[in-house]
């Protein structure tokens, strides 16, 4: 897969046939643009699986454990999280945020909102089935917590 992509892209770049390059370099990308979402996500998932080999083994159904992310927000400081978290497509994501003030977790793209009581913990559980990069933020203060990358 990577080899065939490469041979398609380089000559195209040299010939400066860029529209051909964008549309034709990967057969997976041609379909999703107009296709309804089930076809699009399956095509995207096969495209994604070629990049990190580990993702190819992930079953489409969510694994019971999944990725657990625990974050603490205290005195205006975030701890316990990297700025980027990558998960494979179809992974179950468990996000727990503990906060010393009333807050709300907002997962962009998936459009999920969960309240956190002051001094308590909010938990979001969802299946990462939309590929892409999405901000997760503390909604009240408008502060980004991290960016979730689903590939």
């Amino acid at each position, binding site marked *: 897969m*990577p080899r065939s*992509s*490469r041979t*398609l*892209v*380089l000559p195209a*770049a*040299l010939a*400066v046939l*860029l*529209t051909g*390059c*964008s*549309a034709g*370099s*990967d057969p*997976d*990308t041609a379909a*999703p*643009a107009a296709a309804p*979402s089930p076809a*699009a*996500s399956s*095509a*995207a998932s096969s*495209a*994604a699986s070629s*990049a*990190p080999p580990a993702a190819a083994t992930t079953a489409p159904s969510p694994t019971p454990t999944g990725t657990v992310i625990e974050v603490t927000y205290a005195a205006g400081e975030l701890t316990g999280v990297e*700025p*980027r978290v*990558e998960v494979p497509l179809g992974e179950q994501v468990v996000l727990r945020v503990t906060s010393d003030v009333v807050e709300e977790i907002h997962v*962009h*793209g998936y*459009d999920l909102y969960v309240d956190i009581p002051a001094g308590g913990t909010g938990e979001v559980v969802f299946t990462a089935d*939309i*590929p*892409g*990069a*999405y*901000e997760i*933020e503390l909604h009240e*203060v*408008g*502060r*980004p917590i991290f*960016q979730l*990358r689903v*590939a």
Partner: protein
Amino acid sequence: MIVLAHGVGSRADLPVPLTLALYGAGLAVLVSFLALVLLWRTPRLRGDAAGRPLPGVVQAVVDSPVTKGVLRAVVLLLTLVVVAVALVGPPSPNDNLSPFALYVTLWVGLIPASLLLGSFWAYVNPLRALHAGLAKLTGEAPAERRLPSLGYWPAAVALLVFVWLELVLPGRAEPRTVGIFLVLYGVAQLVAGLWFGAGWYARGDAFEVYSTLLGRMSPFGRRADGQLVVRSPLDGIDGLRQERGLTAVVMVLIGSTGFDGLSRTQYWQAGPGQEAYLTAVPGTLGLLVMIAIATVLYVGATLLAGVLTGQPPRTQPGRYAHSLVPIAAGYAIAHYFSLLLLDGQATWILASNPFGRDGVDLFGTYSNAIDYTAVSPRAIANVQIGAIVLGHVLGVLLAHDRAVRTPHRATTGQLPLVVVMIAFTVGGLSLLLSS
């Protein structure tokens, strides 16, 4: 605060490793330049003299005051609805269409519309419609004769204000912020328009100038004799007149997409931009720094070109400014097209119930959610590379055609600009893709 989940494409979505994509893109620009030097030895572009006239019926319909009047009235009405929704509609950005209508449907939708149809915003500009009504009351514009001396500088300032709002101001997604901005912007533009005359909007309205610049790449345009013609986009851009401030306009456009890229990198979010959700200070500095970097590189290269070819260096930045238009278009497409296709859906969903009243669902779409799978991340990454490389290749071509009009050391003179173009290509792509 960030409503917009844009920029889904990233390094992980590329069909090739990032370094290979960067080499390929830089090489494509270099190879095109070499091919131009060998094969394109004399100027071929004819600017506004070129083009085949459209059929008489088409010209008559487009130039008819009825068509223009109806379209302007429709766009004015839609604008007033958006302003009203922004000011008194649902207070949360998630339920209010105005941020999406301004930042996505108008600002980003303007790009494909102008590339296809030409300078369409000048045709429907709601400010021009309001101006026509007000000018009847106020009479002659007092400073009309001074307008030409300003060139495009008013547009450069207006664009800088808008991109600052769009990319920097922490409260930019709040509907009330959008509403207040639209009202203040409209009032300021109308006052300036009444002062300088109707010609102001083509030199001072950010949206009209942006649309007109990009519209130069459209296959449709107006020839020097006033006929509507179909023509090569290259002739269209070549016909852009050198005027004061044109370089500044393009630098604001290019620098702001550069800042958009920077602000999505891990470097920015974990470093200088850590507090950007709270205060406008880091974003303002970052935006100005990116515009300054683009300007120093471009102006430096063109000044050097003047020295190498024995031409007056001071006139050189303006002489090649038109070649930056396709580059600005390429960056704009690369940065924002996914935003239009994905987040842009929100405008139409929320338009079904613009004021957030219970039980209102005008188009039956209010319960829809944005379909983020409409475009795959890999398709986005491919379009990003394609748009940026194609923009720079066209830029090199346009600059080359102008350079060979003064054959003395024309090839040597282009070298600094070609180096800068390659740097822009590689730098712009790494900012976009390495986030």
